[in-house]
């Protein structure tokens, strides 16, 4: 896949990065390529240790890759072969830290103004621009405060304002919501998405929370063990995963213990505890096929239905908006949602053919 450099705000090609050198080298990135177009928000998603934060820091210039290239717009900022490495301060990027990293000895205004001062902007111009950004982020009245006088959510917005104020071509966000408590996080998620759309930002965001990634980004890059596992729009990542890892990472799933009886193109016939199920093959068929279905796709029925297995109910857990019910028999264990509490007994769990994925 070749991309036109001019179309992209950020292009990373075949990036390799090790921690340590020589015999003790521990490869973190093993050939990652990605691009970010103008006005696009890309989420780097992955479990811890997958290299997503390292990739972001390498783009910012805070880590030194071993090989590959990084372009910001048409500026080359890193080239492993040509030994070109632009220092972080020359890359003109905005970075929002997970810890916010606000300077405790500077006021909110000075925190935000610092990047402009370094760009030799006049005093009046700085005041106007900082005031503008603080206003946009709903911090207009807090300029004279010090960071420790702000709430967590306000600190996070100051960190964003500080990264935005000098109009960097790309803004990098490192787990921007993970330091907020659960209730605040939902509000901040909506605020961040709204801000990105309103200001037309190009952003690269690291997160380990798939719901957050899907809510905020236009495109998700799923990293696994230093490589890109799959990338695409949130919807395609969720609904049409190409690998078992993607499918399992992107939602809550049931693994259905079953053996493959026959395969005809996409159509797979499975056998589970004597019952025969019809499923859909996805991706490249593995040596040990795994059947998977999202928890929300399992339909509970009291009567016998098509493409279903019968299991006794173990327990129901109240989640507020619904019940999560657990059905267990022997090694087989399935979860399904119900709108009401089920009476004890045995139920038929129906799995639609196109939703029962076989990898």
């Amino acid at each position, binding site marked *: 896949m070749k991309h036109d450099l001019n179309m992209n705000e950020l292009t990373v090609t075949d990036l390799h990065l090790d921690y340590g050198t020589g015999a003790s080298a521990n490869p973190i990135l093993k050939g990652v390529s990605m691009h970010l177009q103008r006005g696009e928000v890309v989420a780097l998603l992955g479990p811890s240790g997958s290299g997503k934060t390292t990739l972001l820091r390498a783009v910012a210039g805070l880590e030194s890759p071993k090989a590959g290239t990084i372009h910001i717009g048409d500026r080359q900022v890193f080239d492993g072969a040509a030994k070109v490495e632009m220092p972080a301060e020359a890359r003109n990027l905005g970075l929002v830290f997970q810890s916010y990293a606000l300077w405790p*000895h500077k006021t909110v205004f000075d925190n935000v103004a*610092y990047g402009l001062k370094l760009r030799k902007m006049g005093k009046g111009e700085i005041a106007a621009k900082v005031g503008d950004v603080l206003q946009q982020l709903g911090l207009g009245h807090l300029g004279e405060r010090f960071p420790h006088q702000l709430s967590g959510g306000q600190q996070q917005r100051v960190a964003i304002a500080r990264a935005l104020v000098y109009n960097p071509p790309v803004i990098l966000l490192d787990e921007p919501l993970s330091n907020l408590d659960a209730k605040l996080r939902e509000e901040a998620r909506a605020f961040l998405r709204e801000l990105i759309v309103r200001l037309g930002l190009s952003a690269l965001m690291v997160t380990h929370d798939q719901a957050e990634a899907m809510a905020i980004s236009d495109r998700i890059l799923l990293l696994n063990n230093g490589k890109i596992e799959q990338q695409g729009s949130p919807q395609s990542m969720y609904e049409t995963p190409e690998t078992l890892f993607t499918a399992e990472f992107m939602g809550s799933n049931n693994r259905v213990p079953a053996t493959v009886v026959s395969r005809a193109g996409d159509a797979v016939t499975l056998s589970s505890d004597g019952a025969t199920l019809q499923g859909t093959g996805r991706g490249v068929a593995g040596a040990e096929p795994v059947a998977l279905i999202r928890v929300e796709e399992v339909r509970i029925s009291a009567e016998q239905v098509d493409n279903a297995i019968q299991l006794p109910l173990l327990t129901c857990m109240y989640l507020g908006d619904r019940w999560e019910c657990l059905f267990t028999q022997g090694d087989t264990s399935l979860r399904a949602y119900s709108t009401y509490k089920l009476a004890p007994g045995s139920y038929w769990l129906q799995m639609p053919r196109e939703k029962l994925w076989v990898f």
Partner: protein
Amino acid sequence: MTTFSLPRARLNWPRGLVVALTCLAVFVPLLLIFYQSFLSAPFFMPNKEVGLDAFRFIFEDADFWMAFKNGLVLAAGLAVIAVPLGGMLAFLMIRTDLPGRGWIAPLLLVPIFVSPMVMGFGYVVSMGPVGFYSVWAKQLLGFIPWNIYSFTSIVVIAGLTHVPHVYLYASSALKSLGSDVEEAARVAGASPLQVMLNVSLPMIMPALAYAGVLVFFLGFEVFGLVLVLGDPEGHLVLATYLYKLTNKLGTPSYHLMAAVAVCLVMVTMPLVMMQRWLLKSANKYVSIKGKGARQKAMPLGRWKWVAFAVLAGWLVFTIVLPLTGIVLRSFVQYWGEGVKLADVLTLQHFRDILEQPSLMRGILNTVLIGVVGGGLAVVCYTGIALAMHRKQDGITRLLDYSVLVPRAVPGLLAGLSFLWVFLFVPSWLDGFLKLSDSGLAAWLSAHVIPALREVRSTIFALWLAYSVVWLAYGMRLISTALLQVGPELEEAARAVGASRGQVTRDVTVPLIKYGMLGAWLMVFLIFEREYSTGVYLLSPGTEVIGAMLVSLWAGGSTDLVAALSFINITLVAIGLGIALRFGVKLHN
């Protein structure tokens, strides 16, 4: 099921003993100085009166005011030079990709552990009017471009040799400062220099303020450097003024010395208390810090070699020049213009030392006081620290302040006051005993009092003075180790039924074993370096290298001073080598 009952708790005798001894050792000498300063004559004279005569005399002496003013200038100059350089050095060493950081780090500690007396002497023989480098510079340039004896030179030398003190505090503050705040500045477009000036140094301001007060305070304590370098042009500071008073009036002018000592303590005591306060608020500040993460050294780019050159220049000036001067001087017969180095090489000075029993005894004493005395001091410090450990009461607070008091008494004064203790206390006790006519009193007067008088000329007197002078330092070493013992480990022992004493013996002390060993090594280094405390306690039997350097220097025996300095440096180098080999933390 039977429960095993435990013995009832008793009065804490060991703690009481530790507290009493500590207070005696700390306050008796200090009180004696104050008492003496308000007498009109030395305390052993019969015709003394209580009054302010001593103060009146020194306040009328122009030299006193000159010394006081010089001391102030020196202390201020020290802070002005050492704080910015120390902060910058810490930033370069901790955060950037400065070349050679690995081997520079241990070198930075050398000026802290080499005796200032040795340093001063090193500058005389390397850069004095006929020093090695001065002579070589004259051969090259036709003139000597520096005057090491001017007061400005003294301030610059003192400032540059105190940079490591600031470096130690600044670097440990930087290490605990998360790197994300600096990365945020870099991403915003700040160069390494801007990061240092706008973020790193402002954020470690409390540590820098503490270090600033510390070096200001150390400026008032400077003795050896000014004694050696200030003499030719007559520059005095309070400590050297006090030292010269000994000879000024012929008779021992203890009352005048005490008055000067009181003036000096009046300056240093508030500074020590201020340091304590600053250290506490510095620790509070630590709560506001960034998040630590694995970080890459900040690339200095084209400034890399400029920074390296500045650092190398500092290393050459503060370490290489004085130390090579001493090494060269200790192996040449004599030195001056037109002398060729190869012609005058000799081992004669070391042979001379071998032939003088007092010098050999001095070397042996120096090793003994470092190894054995250092070990005993650590045991005492541990005892005091344990008396304060996990007990928040009035006695702990009393000890907490008491151990700081000796910090405010410069070594020279401490040595003097202990001399007085050993002179005064036996005769005072004797007089007290003579008043009663019981047999016991007579026996005590006949047998114990002479023994007490004897103590003055034993190495015990010196050890006691050394241990008290370095009390605050030693206590910090031990309490750092104690801080790392989790309270739950001791509570677990209490819960299974161990008494306080058993907890200490079976849990706390075994856990701080390695901390104590490290402290022993540090105290060894400090005791090897110490010179001023022994000056007034110097007598046959109590010779140590440091005090002998002062007296030999006064007597003008440059050859022996050079050879003894060389031996002193070697002892310190051995200690430092062991410390580095076993990874002892050289600061906290």
